[in-house]
């Protein structure tokens, strides 16, 4: 049984690849601007340090959220604040199979969120997956590499889901062929 089929899905082609690069470049440069974070202890609770974008209490600490849409179904929301940035991604899901695969795959990743360090355990409302980057992360990791990771993630997840869909269809075809052989004399 073929395990994996590499490359883009058969339905997508040149037109997909050509607009993906500018979309990722836009997300990259916007993240570059948004990831200017500093330590900011909580103003409301003593000795606490919370990511302000998650608390959402004080308006003066939150910046304007930026939404970068490729289509209504494929977009990226960047919510900056003074000490944290939340990046939410809605992955392209063209049909029912991709929807199921995307849901299962993102659930798998989000259950292992602490391995990814910057991943959020639950995606923001209306999106497939979210990242939460705080000033503490930027103190330990290089900002450029972090942005590279997020962009690479966005690229690879599309490829993964296309590959999984091809694998599902290939396996289904083989199973159906084997099953039907029973009825052929």
């Amino acid at each position, binding site marked *: 049984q073929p395990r994996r089929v590499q490359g883009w899905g058969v339905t997508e082609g040149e*037109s997909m690849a050509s*607009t993906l690069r*500018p979309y990722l470049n836009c997300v990259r*440069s916007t993240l570059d601007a948004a990831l200017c974070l500093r330590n900011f202890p909580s103003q409301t609770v003593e000795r606490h340090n919370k990511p302000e974008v998650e608390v959402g209490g004080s308006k003066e600490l939150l910046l*304007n959220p*930026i939404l970068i849409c490729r289509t*209504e179904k494929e977009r990226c929301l960047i919510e900056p604040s003074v000490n944290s940035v939340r990046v939410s991604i809605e992955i392209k899901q063209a049909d029912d199979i991709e929807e199921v695969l995307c849901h299962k795959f993102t659930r798998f990743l989000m259950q292992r969120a602490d391995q990814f360090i910057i991943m959020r355990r639950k995606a923001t409302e209306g999106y497939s997956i979210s990242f939460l980057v705080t000033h503490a992360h930027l103190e330990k990791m290089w900002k450029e590499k972090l942005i590279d990771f997020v962009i690479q993630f966005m690229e690879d997840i599309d490829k993964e889901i296309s590959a999984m869909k091809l694998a599902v269809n290939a396996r289904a075809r083989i199973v159906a062929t084997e099953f039907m052989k029973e009825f052929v004399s």
Partner: protein
Amino acid sequence: VTRGFRRSLPMAAEDMACVSARAAEVDGLLAQKKALDALIKSLEQPPLSSKDQAVKKASQEVVFKVFAAVEDKDITATTDGLQDISLHELLLKYVYAGLASPRPPLPPGDAKQSDIDAVLQIQRKWSATMLKWHSVILAKTGPGGAVRAMADRKTVLTN
């Protein structure tokens, strides 16, 4: 870039009449194929202080019309024509507004898949145009333009 340039943008409170008048003028200039003049006209008197979402949306529509009218190959030339640096940053804010609103809107959920695919295709074209504008203008303003689009309290973005 000094802070002095901000005073060149008039902080007049906007209302629909102003925006409609500007829309009419921009339409006229676009009909005469004067894309650069239309762009400069559409960026005049942005409704930065306005709390009315309808006014902000209408102002965005005026700029979006110019975006759609300019050919992809002319984008660099048109932005080079904008001499005023403060306009570059305002333009970047409008580009982010354009990226946030895919058009045309999707038909309701029970529409045929082929209809939805057709609309998605047009939305991709719009986003491709917006992304081109974004890369050209960001090259001019540098990352500071993006930072100000996020940090400015008075923006042209709707809530």
